[in-house]
């Protein structure tokens, strides 16, 4: 098993700065907050979102509901929140996929930086490449050599 780095979870909101006048009229938060993420139920993003939603609910005295809009490496969730009303009630739990997608996709339906207000990183976790125990590769260099030699494709799961 080869650890290749750590990635972070970060909470963001549709790009906005809550104007003082708005806050005076409607003390934040005064209603349900939606925390969206773009990954599978029961996965790491989901568990982390639910842990924080529960604690936020206790601190903010308002319901915080986790909403899953999975697919496209989290892009659907990011797009949903990027286009939501910028009032602080639509948050998104971003993962490292947010920046990887921005680097990898020719175009995205949102601007990965300008369309969001980044509130806080919340946790970091390791990313690991693993092969079955009897595989000849003992490190990433070995694995790349094996992948380069073999005529078959090198399949991955995540």
């Amino acid at each position, binding site marked *: 098993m080869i650890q290749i780095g750590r990635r972070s979870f970060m909470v963001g909101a549709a790009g906005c700065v809550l104007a003082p006048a708005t806050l005076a009229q409607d003390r934040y938060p005064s209603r349900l907050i939606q925390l969206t993420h773009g990954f599978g139920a029961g996965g790491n993003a989901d568990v982390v979102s639910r842990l924080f939603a529960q*604690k936020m609910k206790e601190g903010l005295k308002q319901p915080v509901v986790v909403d899953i809009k999975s697919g496209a490496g989290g892009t659907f969730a990011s797009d949903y929140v990027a286009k939501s009303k910028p009032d602080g009630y639509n948050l998104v739990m971003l993962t490292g996929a947010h920046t990887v997608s921005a680097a990898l996709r*020719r175009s995205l339906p949102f601007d990965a*930086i300008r369309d969001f207000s*980044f509130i806080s990183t919340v946790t970091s976790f390791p990313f690991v490449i693993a092969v079955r125990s009897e595989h000849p590769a003992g490190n990433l260099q070995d694995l790349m050599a094996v992948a380069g030699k073999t005529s078959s494709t090198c399949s991955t799961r995540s």
Partner: protein
Amino acid sequence: MTTAAEDPAIKASLLSLGSEPAPSSPARAHMVKREIERWSSVVAKAAIQPA
């Protein structure tokens, strides 16, 4: 968010998942920008064709 990340129960749950609490408030856009630049460099060096 920082308060939640510092809660002992949350910390324990995160650690049990292999994650470490890493609150930073506010998370700055430049961190995201730096990450995008980093991965753009990886994509270019690996000659990955953007989808």
